[in-house]
């Protein structure tokens, strides 16, 4: 039997984690074609 891989704790975020860049593409002002 293959030993079930030990559940690693959720990887802690590194110190100084930079959030992903704000959203692009931006809002639609009229309509999308």
């Amino acid at each position, binding site marked *: 039997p293959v030993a079930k891989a030990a559940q690693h704790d959720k990887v802690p975020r590194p110190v100084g984690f930079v959030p992903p*860049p704000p*959203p*692009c*593409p*931006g*809002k*639609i*002002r009229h309509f999308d*074609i």
Partner: protein
Amino acid sequence: VPAAPPAPLGCDDPESEAAAEAAVNYINGQSHHGYKFALNRIEDIRVVRQGPNNDIIFLELDLLETTCPILSPTPLENCTVRSFVEHAVEGDCDVKLQKVDGILSVLGSKCHSHADSTEDIRKACPDCPVLAKMNNTEVLETVSAALNAYNSKTTDSYLRLLEIGRAKIQYHPGHIVVTEFAVGATNCSAEEAKANVGACQLLPEDQSNFGFCRAVMVKSPSQDLQVDCQLYGHQVPAPDIPLLSWVFYPTGQDTS
């Protein structure tokens, strides 16, 4: 110490919107054909720091054609974006700007415009007429007949065709051709033109007077032709924008 990288901008941040506004004004200012374009969406923005208070900004913009001809003095904010069922035309633009001490300047732009697909229009509005090709014979005949009709009635200057803006042909119910085209005043009165139309040339730049016409030709069930032209009066052109060239306006085009 190298300049800290600028915080990544979001596409809806005020700085992004300010850059997009400068870009759209530049694109409309440089364009010589068709209609003014309005911002529909900021697709992407990338900022590359050159030094303190000196950034290069790369913008990807999604624009939509408005109903204002490019030569119209109407401010862009008063121009209506052409609706989807009128067969919208989209512009995709890549623009490079520089921001030095908070002042934006456009270094260059490259745009491609294209009409929405006929399938999309038909899906949303099965009976809506779609854009006709510029070299469609019926379109050319309608423009010619409309301009002749206008010139035969006007007491003002004889008008010459500059370019066809757009055209649609409805085949049911009734056979109707609708066209929009740009015109320029010439150095002849309409009366003088009857004698020698070859001598009638567009007014020189310092007196130029452009305008725009809309014409509807009903071919069936009965024949009728309506044409309405508005001249803008002389406008002082921006120093680096040459006179409009006498070319037809292709539906899809690249401009840099």
